[in-house]
């Protein structure tokens, strides 16, 4: 009996804490498939909330364009982040060069730096580079802001690969670059997978950057699209249909939920990889 309480208590606490979240998700599901709800009680069943999938919503571009933009942004940002993190982290973990310690400190400081203070400066940089209002521009900004984290996480994974393995590769005939590509990268693959999942979800959820730096409707990502629905578009009389918003919200989170379900195993590795100095 005492044992049962001991084992059950953490679950009880967790359940209590997640209840508000669960209720929100429940509302999202119920609301998306009924014309009206009273609290959590639906009033019949309908698919009409989902009509935005086939017909344009007001004068907005199709939601599929926004979905594509979100995918491109999250995917592009993930790829760039992985490329830079895995090379930079290798250098920080394995090469000795002037200013290595300083650079590592800098990475940590930047990781803690509130990036929102950079918004205006970034705007000028994007304008100067003619990347304002482009997907690649926002992807680069997002990469830059998340790089400290990515580098730090990947460095932890590289630190955990024994020197012997890398030395063996060098003696077996690899150049340093070959050793990195053919031996080190495969050995930190769990780290790369974890970072990829983490970054993709982060990119998918990103709202502020695309909202500020990609004002054109053709560049909208899903997050910006949904905001425009709740806030009303230009010249639109605001008539909030919660059913439709729930459906659009569900459309937005569903890929992430599925993604999580299949990749949570990798995500947990971020912590398993360990972060060492």
């Amino acid at each position, binding site marked *: 009996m005492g044992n049962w309480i001991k084992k059950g208590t953490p679950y009880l606490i967790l359940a209590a804490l997640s209840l508000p979240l669960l209720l929100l998700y429940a509302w999202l599901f119920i609301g998306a498939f009924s014309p009206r709800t009273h609290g959590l009680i639906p009033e019949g069943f309908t698919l009409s909330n989902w009509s935005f999938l086939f017909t344009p919503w007001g004068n907005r571009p199709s939601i599929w364009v926004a979905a594509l933009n979100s995918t491109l942004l999250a995917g592009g940002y993930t790829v760039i982040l992985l490329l830079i993190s895995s090379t930079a982290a290798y250098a920080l973990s394995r090469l000795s060069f002037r200013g290595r310690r300083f650079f590592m400190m800098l990475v940590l400081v930047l990781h803690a730096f509130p990036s929102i203070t950079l918004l205006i400066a970034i705007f000028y940089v994007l304008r100067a580079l003619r990347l304002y209002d482009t997907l690649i521009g926002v992807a680069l900004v997002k990469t830059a802001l998340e790089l400290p984290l990515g580098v730090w996480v990947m460095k932890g994974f590289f630190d955990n690969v024994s020197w012997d*393995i890398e030395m*063996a590769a060098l*003696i*077996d005939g*690899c150049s340093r670059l*070959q050793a990195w590509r053919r031996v080190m990268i495969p050995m930190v693959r769990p780290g790369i997978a974890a970072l990829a999942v983490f970054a993709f979800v982060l990119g998918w959820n990103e709202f502020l950057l695309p909202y500020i730096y990609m004002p054109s409707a053709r560049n909208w990502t899903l997050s910006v699209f949904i905001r425009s629905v709740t806030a009303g578009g230009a010249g639109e009389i605001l008539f909030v249909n919660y059913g439709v918003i729930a459906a659009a919200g569900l459309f937005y989170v569903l890929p992430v939920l599925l993604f999580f379900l299949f990749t949570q195993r990798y995500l947990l590795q971020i912590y398993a990889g360990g972060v060492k100095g």
Partner: protein
Amino acid sequence: MRVSIERLTKRFGKVVAVQDLSLEIMDGEFVALLGPSGCGKTTVLLTVAGIYRPTHGWIRFDGKVVNDLPPRERNIGMVFQSYALYPHMTVYENIAFPLTLRRMPRAEIHRRVVAAAQLLQIEELLDRRPGQLSGGQQQRVALCRALAKEPDLLLLDEPLSNLDARLRLLARAEIKRLQKELGITTIFVTHDQVEAMTMADRIAVLNQGVLQQFDTPEALYTRPANLFVAEFIGSPPMNFLEGSLTVHGSALRLTGPEWHVTLPEGLKSWAEAVRDRDRLILGVRPEHVRLAPSEEGELRAEVYVIEPLGRDVLVNLRIGSLRLRALVPPPFPWKVGDIVGLHFDPAHLYLFDPHTGVLIGRS
């Protein structure tokens, strides 16, 4: 391939890992680097392999300085203490990896991998991954990977230290046989003097990065250059008795607090030459200590611990604060607490200088 290490010094910041080491290793020779953990053995290997650059000194292969040659151009096979197998590759891919990097034709790679696998009897493991292998199997795969390259030089860093005692014995004989069969110049690192003694043609004994002696196993045993080698080589280690030299008529005696030993003829002349030293250390191996009834011996000691080893009995004795070990044939007629007499075999005694540790002479 002939390997020369000339006046090699390697520092890591302030730590001097290897100091002024010179070794000349002949073509086809099996040399062991022997020393306690942390004495710089691995550093020497990795410097020879080209992973570390010497701080001072030169490495030569067949007379040519290779200090600037990257590891991949040295054609070296190396087995690490951790084996360092690539976990994401199968055993076959592990062995083939060095060959693929050389852009060898596929058929030739296959031929070599299979031949090497046969040599080490691991053909049935080729499809497995390193994670699915036992320690002994991993060790064989690592050795196989090193040999399949047909290297000019084989470097082995404590390859047996992660095996259990029985496997270690087997692997010891196996590596020795392979080395002789293939005739590859080999440097073998170990902290286990039995391994070094049984396997190597010559042994370089290192202590704190400094070479103590480089000689055949027999010479290390019979003519240790100093106290460190004398203590490190031979198991159980040599007994040391520190005392001062006193003259009794025509005899010379080494006198300690509760004992004295008359030096045999063979040691006398050596002792004469260093009469000005206030103190000397007498060395005698446990196998050269004889036990006798208490009234017969030159020294009298108390039996302290008795350790039967099967073929011999290892007896721990004490004379006051002095501890001695004797290795005697069974049966052992005394029991703990008994007083026994001791003789030292006069043909196998050593004299050392206690300040420098250097061997002064032996009988």
